[in-house]
């Protein structure tokens, strides 16, 4: 299906423009930058792709998400043109069937797309990987995540009550974007683990339902810290211990201090294997009805009187982000069988890069 781009004349007043766009259902409830033809053209100058190219048809509405329409949403979100290749890669990643976007956009779960950025682009566009990551402050993080959110509203039909049936929504739905703090990670970064070169830039899309802070300021031994982390991850509200989902992912965002301590004794693969082994609780922790349903579903979640949170090491995604000095990591339960998807971010066109260099 198509959704036309209409040009409308509005008074030259920020509040009137906001009111008019809100009335048309084009915003997330926050003010947007008016996507004038000039601004959209500047956004488009940051890609070599033709404006009419259909990048994706995103469920549930499956409107044609063309390069131009995505640019309109990126302008509205407040993106600088140099962020646009990141936004395009993020949209492409959500369209991968493994991401299960229909479920992400329509489920009763609070799930949302979470953008993790790797590679040199983090420095080029000033992506926050450190203090207060996932919080307000940096334009790249704030507006890239928001552009993706507006794309979901305007081009995928993620409209509350109509097609989006989320019982409540994780507030990351407004924007959720982090860079991996690769320079402070003792291990290979996420995108290298997933098959990309270190000097390539990528987005990895995850589908968190929520975030859980894990504080540990006292551990001096890697094993102790990992045990505390595993204990915190054994809340039974996640989809991994729900009858219909046996292969969901668990994402761990380790702060640099925690990562450094764990790496004294563990490779990242050993962390995954340790978590896989430790994350299990006695069936008595769950209701008899749920246990019966899990047994009937036959996904192998119950083993020797215990409920397992995961069955494969690849279900654990681990990356490093956060401020230096603090000892707080985060755990994200992801949605159902949605799998993380990584896409390469295209470099800026030579003409754009040359113009940017001249103006600076």
């Amino acid at each position, binding site marked *: *299906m198509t959704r036309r781009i209409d040009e409308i004349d509005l008074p030259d007043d920020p509040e009137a423009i906001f009111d008019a766009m809100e009335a048309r259902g084009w915003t997330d409830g926050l003010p947007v930058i008016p996507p004038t033809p000039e601004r959209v053209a500047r956004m488009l100058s940051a890609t070599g792709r033709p404006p009419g190219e259909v990048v994706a048809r995103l*469920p*549930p*509405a*499956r409107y044609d998400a063309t390069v131009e329409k995505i640019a309109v949403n990126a302008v509205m979100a407040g993106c600088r043109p140099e962020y646009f290749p990141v936004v395009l890669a993020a949209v492409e990643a959500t369209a991968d069937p493994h991401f299960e976007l*229909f479920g992400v956009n*329509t489920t009763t779960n609070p799930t949302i797309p979470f953008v993790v950025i790797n590679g040199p682009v983090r420095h080029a566009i000033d992506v926050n990987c450190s203090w207060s990551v996932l919080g307000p402050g940096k334009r790249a993080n704030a507006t890239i995540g928001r552009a993706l959110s507006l794309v979901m509203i305007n081009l995928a*039909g993620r409209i509350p*009550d*109509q*097609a989006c*049936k989320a019982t409540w929504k994780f507030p990351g739905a407004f924007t959720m974007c982090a860079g991996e703090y690769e320079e402070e990670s003792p291990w290979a970064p996420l995108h290298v683990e997933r098959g990309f070169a270190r000097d390539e830039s990528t987005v990895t899309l995850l589908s968190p339902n929520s975030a859980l802070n894990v504080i540990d300021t006292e551990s001096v031994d890697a094993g102790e810290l990992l045990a505390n982390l595993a204990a915190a991850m054994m809340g039974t509200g996640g989809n991994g211990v729900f009858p219909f989902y046996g292969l969901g992912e668990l994402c761990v965002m380790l702060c640099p201090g925690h990562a450094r301590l764990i790496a004294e004794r563990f490779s990242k693969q050993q962390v995954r294997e340790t978590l896989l082994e430790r994350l299990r609780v006695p069936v008595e922790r769950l209701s008899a009805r749920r246990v019966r349903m899990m047994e009937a579903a036959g996904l192998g979640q119950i083993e020797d009187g215990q409920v397992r949170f995961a069955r494969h090491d690849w279900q654990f995604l681990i990356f490093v982000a956060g401020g230096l000095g603090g000892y707080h990591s985060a755990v994200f339960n992801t949605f159902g069988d949605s799998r993380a998807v990584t896409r390469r971010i295209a470099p800026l066109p030579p003409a754009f890069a040359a113009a940017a260099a001249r103006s600076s």
Partner: protein
Amino acid sequence: MTVVTDRFVSLARASAKAAGHPDLPLLVLPHPFETLPIERLHELAEATVDECVALVRAQPPRAHD
């Protein structure tokens, strides 16, 4: 045809339209569904099975682009 509870009709309609089947027949059941005791589920199945079969047998709507 698709089975849906009354809380999810708008999603079913939007999805069917996006997939090119705006007239997809829906069997609409009362919500909630998954928390019903098994006896009530059986009663619901008995009460709706004829309508379900009729919808399955009905001529499928023509797909629209």
